[in-house]
């Protein structure tokens, strides 16, 4: 029976090529956009090296100081705050402190290249799983001694030395300072802002006065919990400790707020921020709600289009429906047939969409819009695509199928 349904479905597709094209284009284009967005999303917040232990990581990279006059200061925290209050937390396994990256000039011969430089401590290398192509990270001694050493990424090695092999021990000049290369790592995409840089050097070599007592700065911390289950405990301790941070200007400042969030929540808290939200919802729920709402709306348009096309197709096929009913098909059987046909159509669209998404991601990766981005379609995304496609197929098929099944056989045979 299934084979008979598929035969019909295929014939119906071929019969109205233009409509089929519109339906398929609607499905596959929508799916392509969704898949590309999912791939970008996954690339940005999924657990990929070096942030492969994301389930145990918390990020503290953003502080808000509320002033009594109603003003706000939104800023990355200072090294002082992180070193004194976050590094000393009892519940985490490890805490790494690092600076945000900044483009820094360097010269190869007379050619200037801008390298993104990040200052980090040695724990940074312990928490994150960088892939070392050669050499090793700098350690505690180098950080304490403010040694002029650097870890560089593969692309920088190629740009600066012309090769990514045998560069450990050689000197790279960044920001008019010479660093000895201790290791070369795989490129990290720029979307992973916490771990990304071209050159990583000991935090102690920074020209900032690290221990100056101030709230705002240019630093961030990654906190590694002992286990994923331990995250709430770490956050609870973190929140307790934040309350103890003295305001540097109590006359004008009302309070400060800083949170340790998991990666996606660290974005959503800033995106979804409302001024009254002192209690500190991370906005993740709202972000998910908005994103899924948008995705649904986005899918709804082609689905409605499909419903429309399907309904008119059904009217063309009323003779077939009448005959099937006359010879014993029940309404339920016909709904089944129509859903199979529709899912078949959407699966074809889904397959095309997947193909288009693959090509689009290759183009985006190849165009070098985002540094070191390498987008891939994973099985996970494929499963997503399948799910979305089925959702499409059923969503757009149910209503027309029900309408079709309710046609009275005598009327259907007359073509009404």
């Amino acid at each position, binding site marked *: 029976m299934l084979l008979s349904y598929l035969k019909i479905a295929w014939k119906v597709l071929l019969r109205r090529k233009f409509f089929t094209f519109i339906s398929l284009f609607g499905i596959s284009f929508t799916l392509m956009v969704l898949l590309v967005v999912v791939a970008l999303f996954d690339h940005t917040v999924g657990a990929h090296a070096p942030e492969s232990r994301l389930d145990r990581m918390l990020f503290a990279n953003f502080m808000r100081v509320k002033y009594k006059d109603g003003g706000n200061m939104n800023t990355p925290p200072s090294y002082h705050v992180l070193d004194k209050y976050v590094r000393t937390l009892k519940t985490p396994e490890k805490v790494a402190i690092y600076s945000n990256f900044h483009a820094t000039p360097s010269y190869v011969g007379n050619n200037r290249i801008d390298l993104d430089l990040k200052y980090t401590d040695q724990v940074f290398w312990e928490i994150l799983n960088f892939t070392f192509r050669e050499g090793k990270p700098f350690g505690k001694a180098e950080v304490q001694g403010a040694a002029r050493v650097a870890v560089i990424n593969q692309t920088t090695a190629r740009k600066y030395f012309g090769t990514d092999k045998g560069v450990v021990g050689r000197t790279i000049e960044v920001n008019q300072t010479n660093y000895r290369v201790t290791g070369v790592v795989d490129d990290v995409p720029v979307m992973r802002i916490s771990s990304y840089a071209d050159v990583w050097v000991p935090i102690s070599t920074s020209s900032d006065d690290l221990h100056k007592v101030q709230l705002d700065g240019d630093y961030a911390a990654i906190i590694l919990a002992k286990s994923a289950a331990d995250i709430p405990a770490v956050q609870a301790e973190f929140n307790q400790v934040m309350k103890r941070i003295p305001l540097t200007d109590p006359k004008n400042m009302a309070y400060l707020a800083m949170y340790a969030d998991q990666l996606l929540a660290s974005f959503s808290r800033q995106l979804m921020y409302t001024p009254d939200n002192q209690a500190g919802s991370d906005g993740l729920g709202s972000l998910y709600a908005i994103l899924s709402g948008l995705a649904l709306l986005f899918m709804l348009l082609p689905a409605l289009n499909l419903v429309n096309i399907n309904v008119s197709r059904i009217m063309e096929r009323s003779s077939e429906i009448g005959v099937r009913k006359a*010879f*014993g098909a*029940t309404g339920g059987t016909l709904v089944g047939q129509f859903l199979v046909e529709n899912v078949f159509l959407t699966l074809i669209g889904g397959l095309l969409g997947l193909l288009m998404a693959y090509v689009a991601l290759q183009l985006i990766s190849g165009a070098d819009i985002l540094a070191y981005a390498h987008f891939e379609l994973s099985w996970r995304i494929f499963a997503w695509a399948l799910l979305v496609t089925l959702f499409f197929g059923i969503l757009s098929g149910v209503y027309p199928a029900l309408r079709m099944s309710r046609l009275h*056989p005598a009327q259907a*045979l007359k073509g009404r």
Partner: protein
Amino acid sequence: MSASTPTNQLFLDPTIVAARPAAATGKPMLKLTDIEKIYQTKTIETVALNRVNLTIGKGEFVSIMGPSGCGKSTLLSIMGLLDEPSSGQVEIDGRPVTSYSDKELANLRNQKIGFVFQSYHLINDLSVLDNVELPLLYRSGVSGKERRQRAHAALDKVGLSARTNHFPSQLSGGQRQRVAIARALAGNPEIILADEPTGNLDSVMGEEIMDLLLGLNRQDGVTIVMVTHDEQQALKTERVIRFFDGSQVS
């Protein structure tokens, strides 16, 4: 079962028609009691069938005649459980179907009734064989292999076994109607309801189809009710029922 010659008896009194013993076995195959069909729109009420009482015996070949719009096709639809009467009772093989659910009606149609339509109503996207298999598709417990065999047998009977892989569009009108008859036969029904089966065909092809139906009735004992405009063909059947304005007049 039935080998009687066409008698074409006309009965003026519907009760006499209802009381007429069935040709072959005497048992009624189809019984309509006080059937009314009224089409209601906002402003107009149209009576399509007006208190029709009719009994068709097992193995009978009955033709229904009357001018266009007199309710013949509506009557056939009601007999075939394709349409519901506004009031009255339909009995198939002694079972009243008034309280049947859609599913039960579908099942009864599938088991007992085969349809032949004026405009064939073949599914153009399916091959001849697939079209003929259709009634068996909705019958549980029939394997794919058995479906094929029975469809082939039905096509053999109508002389189209060489065209199984053709599509309806590749066939002539007469051939299409023969495919439609094969489809009606595939499920081995006890009743065939034919709505102007020769209406779209020239006289030669019409004769062929008529002979086919007569053969089915006489050799296989299939009860046939045929709506027709063709007096000559009607005269070949055992009984002619005439309709005018929704009422049976003979």
